[in-house]
């Protein structure tokens, strides 16, 4: 693998192609459009299908349909399109359709600032569709992550027969980094046959609550059983977290804010304050055990987020120590500024 300069969204495209993706339906939207552009260019060359749909509702529907027909399918969007896709996401969750959904987050709500980054869709990614359902959300923090977490998203989608959201943001999607990635066309091998709860039986797919044979039911015992089984599938899910640094101040961070946290931890270390970073690569199912375990050794837990404070509430829920959320909007703050805030808390 040789070094090259590649954009985050381009790395996601390569990751998808190398994960065997052969179907993309989407509607271009800043700052995710480069993913659609790349898939439009490359999918036909790899025997796949690219469709530009009339909107994001149609896009997610086409992706779920393709997935049910056996395709390795994905779509990519940003905030406004992600909102339109929510109903489809619930449908993908209850029908256990293995699909990958990219959300390259931009400043919201509504049309917001199309070119400004944000992490404002974190909880929407988890809870955006109505009803109870489990979902997997991955959060890339670099161009390298955009490649590897995309590949991982497809593997998880098939292993757990579930929709997987890759929650990126404008910074990670648009920036270019020097990186050594597997070349385009180096296809990953993994089991692409989804094993859902009605697998092996006569297949009927519905968004209605269904029994093991896939047919609708209003029986409340069956309803509870379905929900419990849907959630229980993720008992085997291994959270993807990485700890770096020292005990002391603990930054819990994901996406582009991880880069800010890491830089800030180094600045703190230079000032003689020991600090570490827990990087959440899988944001949901929320890595409760890991966050609890690492926070036990921490004097202070800091959660920097490009939103009004979302994942910090999950962190507060599982930590016993003091938790400080730091919010900023439309761009990262300088590490020097975050360090100043942290020092004010010590």
């Amino acid at each position: 693998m040789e070094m090259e300069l590649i954009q985050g969204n381009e790395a996601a495209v390569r990751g998808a192609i190398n994960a065997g993706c052969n179907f993309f339906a989407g509607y271009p939207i800043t700052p995710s459009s480069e993913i659609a552009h790349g898939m439009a260019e490359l999918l036909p060359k790899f025997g796949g299908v690219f469709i530009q749909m009339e909107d994001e509702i149609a896009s997610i529907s086409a992706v779920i349909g393709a997935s049910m027909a056996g395709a390795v399918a994905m779509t990519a969007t940003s905030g406004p399109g992600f909102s339109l896709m929510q109903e489809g996401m619930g449908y993908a969750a209850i029908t256990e359709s293995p699909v990958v959904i990219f959300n390259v987050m931009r400043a919201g709500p509504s049309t917001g600032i199309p070119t400004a980054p944000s992490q404002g869709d974190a909880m929407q990614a988890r809870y955006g569709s109505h009803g109870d359902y489990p979902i997997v959300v991955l959060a890339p923090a670099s161009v390298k992550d955009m490649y590897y977490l995309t590949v991982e998203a497809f593997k998880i989608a098939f292993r757990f027969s579930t929709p997987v959201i890759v929650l990126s943001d404008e910074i990670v999607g648009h920036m270019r980094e020097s990186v050594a990635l597997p070349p385009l066309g180096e296809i990953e091998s993994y089991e692409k046959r989804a094993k859902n709860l009605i697998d092996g039986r006569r297949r009927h797919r519905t968004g209605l609550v269904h029994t093991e044979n896939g047919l609708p039911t209003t029986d409340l015992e069956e309803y509870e059983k379905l929900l419990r089984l849907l959630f229980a599938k993720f008992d085997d899910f291994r959270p993807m977290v990485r700890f770096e640094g020292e005990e002391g101040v603990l930054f819990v961070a994901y996406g582009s804010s991880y880069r800010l946290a890491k830089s800030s931890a180094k600045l703190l270390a230079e000032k003689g304050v020991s600090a570490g970073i827990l990087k959440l690569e899988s944001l949901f199912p929320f890595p409760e055990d890991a966050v609890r375990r690492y926070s036990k050794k921490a004097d202070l837990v800091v959660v920097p987020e490009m939103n009004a404070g979302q994942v910090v509430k999950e962190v507060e829920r599982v930590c016993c120590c003091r938790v400080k959320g730091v919010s900023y909007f439309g761009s990262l703050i300088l590490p020097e500024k975050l360090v100043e805030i942290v020092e004010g808390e010590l």
Partner: protein
Amino acid sequence: MPREVNIRIAGTGGQGVIKAGLVLAEAFALEGKNVVQTQSYGPEARGGASRADIIVSDDEIDFPGLRRVDYLLVLHDSAYRKYYPQVDGETHVIYDSSLVNARRGLGFPFTETSIREFGTPLFANMIAIGALTAMLGLQPEKVEVVIQKRMRKAEENVKAFRIGFEMGRRVTKPKVVSHVVKPYILS
């Protein structure tokens, strides 16, 4: 070159600022450096000043934004007015003396040279990248490889780059104001 260099290239729409940034960033990547490149997008890019930022480092780059500017290359007066206030005494300011009224820095007639040599201002960006390459101590061969790979009219662009590289090489101390030329107004 120091362990980390922060470069901002700025100009106005149509001057090839983003392309210039990409070429330089990729050349550093080929040299084995860690590189992060970002740029202005959308309305910000269309409405006047546009910019490409490059961080080059021997170490892993954590924070992806510029925390200071070591080299500011400005190709247009509007960009100079927007970004000059953000520099400090340590920043090397390099500007297109054909188009920029600068108070401080090192001026080169990039646009005039492009018009003289190629009959169009289109190659001013590669002439500027040539000059910057010489000052940064980056291997010119690496940049030429990228130009050949990424750019249309590669032959002219390489020629433009070499002209700029010679301009830059003649200057050893970038902080000295070499010459200030009357601004050239594009018709």
